[in-house]
């Protein structure tokens, strides 16, 4: 679930307004965009890559690893099934408001075919310096810089803010994994945490969670055994119960999904829970200092001079 330079990406809905806009950015960031899908434009080229009738046709023509969907909710089930049956290893589902029964169907199909779903309702995945798949400002050097902190987020906007703060503090990111705001995500906080724990380019992890569900509690169980420092921020401390707070998955139902439950589970696991986003970078710094010298080479010096300038401006 960490995007690499060699990860071959197929964009479903590449010729649409958003599909074109973001695919252009992905290509500019160095992502290996292998092609796109639009049944009506099959056989043509778009943004310099071939357009196929289906993910299956794309796979027959040339292998791809990851399918990325710019597809509206009512058409999402069939498009996802096409990618899964074509043999996509990873399927990034940006679409918000896919009906629950369709999401359940897709998870079953993905499981049967060995496809990892990231999302639904994710902003995608980013690996600074390698590429991205999704709708994140990966081309903005004030937000994304190559670094050694992994970020897991249920929210694109808040994830962006956290990445901005990490870049300002000269950490940058090893990988951003947007797991999305759907109530039934294909990749859980815990699974993303395990991936970043295994990743040799990651020295510390930030979990950006929110109220609703029990994913943060489940991730805490894994974090308790980790050597790498983990810092968390949980949005929705003030959320009233039984209200969907923007994301379908961000809802306190009965005694489940509360801020207090997540915070206490994470703290019991030794995770520092920040009260505000601005505290995250400092908590990472403290966690790394406590842990001693990192296993691998760690650079706290930003490569982009403009960021240093901005840091000086603020101090």
């Amino acid at each position, binding site marked *: 679930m960490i995007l690499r330079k060699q990860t071959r990406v197929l964009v479903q809905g590449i010729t649409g307004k*958003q599909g074109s806009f973001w695919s252009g950015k992905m290509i500019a960031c160095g992502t290996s965009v292998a092609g796109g899908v639009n049944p009506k434009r099959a056989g043509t080229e778009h943004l310099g890559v071939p357009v196929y009738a289906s993910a299956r046709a794309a796979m027959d023509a040339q292998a791809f690893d990851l399918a990325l969907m710019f597809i509206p*909710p*009512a058409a999402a089930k069939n498009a996802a099934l096409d990618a899964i049956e074509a043999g996509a290893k990873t399927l990034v589902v940006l679409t918000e*408001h896919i*009906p*629950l*029964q369709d999401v*359940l*169907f897709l*998870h*079953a199909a993905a*499981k*049967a075919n060995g496809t990892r779903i990231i999302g639904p309702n994710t*902003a995608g995945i980013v690996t600074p310096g390698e590429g991205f798949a999704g*709708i*994140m*400002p990966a081309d*903005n050097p*004030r*937000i994304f810089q190559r670094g050694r902190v992994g970020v897991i987020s249920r*929210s*694109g*906007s*808040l*994830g*962006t*803010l956290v990445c*901005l703060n990490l870049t300002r503090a000269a950490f940058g990111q090893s990988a951003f994994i947007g797991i999305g705001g759907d*109530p*039934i*995500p*294909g990749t*859980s906080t815990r699974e993303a945490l395990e991936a970043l724990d295994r990743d040799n380019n990651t020295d510390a992890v930030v979990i*950006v969670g*929110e109220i609703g*569900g*029990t*994913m943060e509690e*489940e991730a805490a169980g894994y974090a308790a055994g980790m050597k790498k420092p983990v810092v968390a*921020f949980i*949005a*929705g*401390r*003030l*959320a*009233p119960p039984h*209200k*969907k*707070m*923007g994301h*379908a*998955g*961000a809802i306190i139902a*009965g*005694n489940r999904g509360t801020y207090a439950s997540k915070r206490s589970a994470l703290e019991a696991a030794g995770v520092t829970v920040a009260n*505000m*986003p*601005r505290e995250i970078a400092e908590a990472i710094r403290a966690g790394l200092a406590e842990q001693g010298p990192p296993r691998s080479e760690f650079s706290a010096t930003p490569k982009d001079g403009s960021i240093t300038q*901005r840091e000086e401006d*603020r101090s």
Partner: protein
Amino acid sequence: MNLLEHAAKDLVLRKAAIPIPRGILCHTPAETAAAFQALGGGCVVKAQIPAGKRGDAGGIRFAETAARAAEIARAMFDEPVQEHRVDSVLIEEKVAIAKEYYVSVLADASARAPVVLFSEEGGSDIEELAASNPAAIRRAVVDLSRGVGEVEADALVGETPHAAALRPLLMKLFEAFRANDAELLEINPLAMLADGSAVALDCKFTLDAAAAYRQPELAKAAAPERMTALECSAREAGLTYIELEGNVALLANGAGLTMTTMDTVSTLGGQPANFQEIGGEAYTKAETALKVVLAKPGVRSLVVNFCGAFARTDVMAEGVVAAWETLKPDVPVFFSIHGTGDDKAIALVRERLGLEPFDVMEDAVHAAVEAAR
């Protein structure tokens, strides 16, 4: 989107051929008395409100005469039950219960699949039962390629004395969960009668809001949510607005960032006036959103916090500036703008409003909290 009991029974269970008691929906005491006569004997009067535990709150009461049924109905229409005004009551025949069970189907995030829950402790609140006696709840994750057939149903209910009646009922319930785009379909209690047949005494059905477009009949029957006037007008404009008690108004994009802005207002000593997010496709609706946010009486300051990923901050800032120039509101506003389109957005706020966005989001929130004091 919750359906009231009578609608859930009528539109979901009846269609699934799951037995329900004979019943009549009534809107006045006179209708209630007539319904009692039509049912011909002892009956139960049930307040139709979107809440559980109605029995404890006096929302489910038995009547042996038509006059008594009308009297109970009148009391329910006059006095709110669990803070809900009662517009209708369901009059149902009283059945002779041999045993009560609990059954439900819902989606489980960890399993990424539907789960069927079953318990012999029917009539209990399932969350309380899960806390006090978790062993009393049996749970089966459903493999969607198989669904719930005889084998799957038997694994849950095979050992109970009423297995023969329960098996087909579980199969029908699961089919109804799928076919009706349910988030939750629950029968509690499910009564077994002396003759071995099953009857659903209550039904809770939550329609998946994302599927409302393909379930128009169910969506139309859903109980209206309790919303303030401002929340209603925002909903009509396709916006997620939640009114809160405080005086620091906020506008942000994306669920996570908006919740964080709200929390930070509180962390820094203020009280948020609302939750208003314009993430996803709604980022083009900043102008309307701001008008809703500022319409709340008592707002003393506003924080605008944008962190653009998909949402373009320049488009959002354009909307905010347009609304500001139209409304000319008399409240101080504090901006923080980062992400997609930020250079253009910041320039716009500088030029048109003469304001300098804060570099750090918490500083903008702090300034708004101070201004509201």
